[in-house]
């Protein structure tokens, strides 16, 4: 079954993002909020009491977050990723983020030949004034993408043009890693769950990009990961013998995202 209609696919390909409304039910949202809150409390218990609010990122692939750990295999998500990129996309993370304040303009693409998609579900209602996801529509495409590197985005005389992806709990924003995005005016407790997919490399340049992504991911998570590894043994055990998950695990091992000792 095709998750998106033809116009939605065209929209995504044209603008580099799309908002899907009311994907999660109230019951599902309650589970997501509970699991998020439980994990956050554990992390905060391990932090100094006087530490100022900061960005926490943690993996949802452990046993303490059963609903969130299954999001990558939720057909509403993985089949949409397959429709937008290809059947061979690989889920590489299911994360929670407690974000603090502004996020400056950036892309999530680390290498010109590394391609990916992010599904982002914000757990609070957000608009352009309180931290909603902002995008520069169409900025995932070259040469537009590269020209933006020369815009002085922090120059107070420059107002970067954007579209604000106002969202409500239950919505999902899907965006291409290469799409320029930011968030402004957010609170010190902005909550987001994400699932990332990488495109299976098909050219020598894309293979190089994928290996480069391993290094970048290690560096990024070393900076922002609040605790634990991205790939919990519980998830890697694949107790239900999901063929899709097994394909992903094999791929993650092949490229070095999962180290052998983590198995």
């Amino acid at each position, binding site marked *: 079954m095709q998750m998106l*209609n033809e116009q939605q696919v065209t929209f995504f390909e044209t603008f580099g993002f799309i908002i899907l409304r009311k994907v999660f039910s109230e019951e599902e949202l309650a589970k997501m909020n509970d699991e998020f809150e439980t994990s956050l409390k554990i992390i905060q218990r391990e932090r100094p009491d006087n530490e100022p609010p900061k960005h926490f990122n943690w993996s949802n692939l452990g046993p303490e977050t059963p609903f969130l750990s299954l999001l990558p295999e939720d057909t509403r998500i993985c089949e949409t990723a397959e429709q937008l990129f290809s059947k061979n996309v690989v889920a590489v993370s299911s994360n929670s983020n407690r974000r603090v304040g502004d996020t400056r303009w950036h892309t999530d693409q680390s290498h010109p030949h590394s391609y990916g998609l992010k599904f982002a579900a914000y757990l609070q209602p957000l608009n352009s004034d309180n931290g909603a996801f902002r995008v520069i*529509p169409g*900025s995932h*495409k070259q*040469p*537009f993408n590269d020209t933006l590197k020369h815009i002085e985005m922090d120059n107070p*005389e420059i107002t970067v043009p954007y579209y604000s992806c106002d969202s409500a709990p239950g919505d999902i924003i899907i965006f291409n890693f290469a799409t320029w995005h930011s968030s402004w005016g957010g609170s010190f407790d902005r909550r987001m769950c994400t699932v990332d997919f990488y495109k299976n490399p098909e050219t020598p340049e894309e293979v190089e990009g994928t290996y480069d992504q391993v290094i970048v991911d290690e560096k990024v998570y070393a900076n922002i990961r609040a605790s634990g590894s991205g790939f919990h043994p519980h998830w890697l055990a694949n107790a239900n013998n999901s063929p899709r998950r097994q394909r992903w695990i094999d791929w993650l091992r092949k490229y070095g995202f999962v180290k052998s000792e983590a198995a």
Partner: protein
Amino acid sequence: MITEQQVYFFKTFGFLVLKNVLAPDELNKIQDEFSIGLAKMDESKMGASVRKQYNWTNLGPDSPFTASLLEDERFYGVAQQIYGDDCMGVDSHANQYNGDRSPWHPDIREPGPDQFSGFKFTFYLAPVDGNSGALRVVPGSHRPGFSAEVEKVFLKDNNPGPDDDPGLAVNEVSAHICVSEPGDAVIFDYFVWHSSWGGSKDRRMVSLQYYKNPKTPEEEEGMRQMVTFRKNFNKGFKRVTKLYPDFWLANPNNNVMRAQWIEQLQKWGFIDPVIA
């Protein structure tokens, strides 16, 4: 004059907002001249689209101040920064919109951006925001590749899809909203996709228009195509095909810039040759 970063911004995104470029006394003069022009409009001159638009030139005797803005260095100086010293000031329009939206469109599709370059300053004479008729732009959509992608998106008003999925309303397209106060200017490339949503029945806008002087045979051909394009545009507003009023062509103050532009416009065929 604008900064190098603003020039780069314009070339990257296809538009630029400049704040407070017109003084209150200048705005008053423009408003007065606008009212004189509007009083001469009747329904027979209204453009046939949901915009319900009146459009007339400011280069006639009723609007000498607005016409003079084309020759004001604050504006042609910006055009020179973008297109070079020999760029051409080509027109100034007044627009009154009575519809609640302007559907998505670029101002020009043919000749393409490899053959022609031009932009307009727009001045909205009342405050406008996202729900009251502000200009909406898809940033970067003046580039041919991106423009072709936007062309594929179904739009309810002017590029509808099938009945069960007619496409996006104007305000559903991902876009930047150019919030503007009287005195501000929004500059945009003719090829950038733009629209407006939620405008009042008396939304007023004045524009100044500049072209790059052709440098290549392809650009020369593009400029010739623009002559036909503009004559057809005039027909859409039930105007005579003559593009320039005698008042402006007479150049009574011997303005040097205007004299150069008239010479260029004659050369390309925008101004019919005088028959002796």
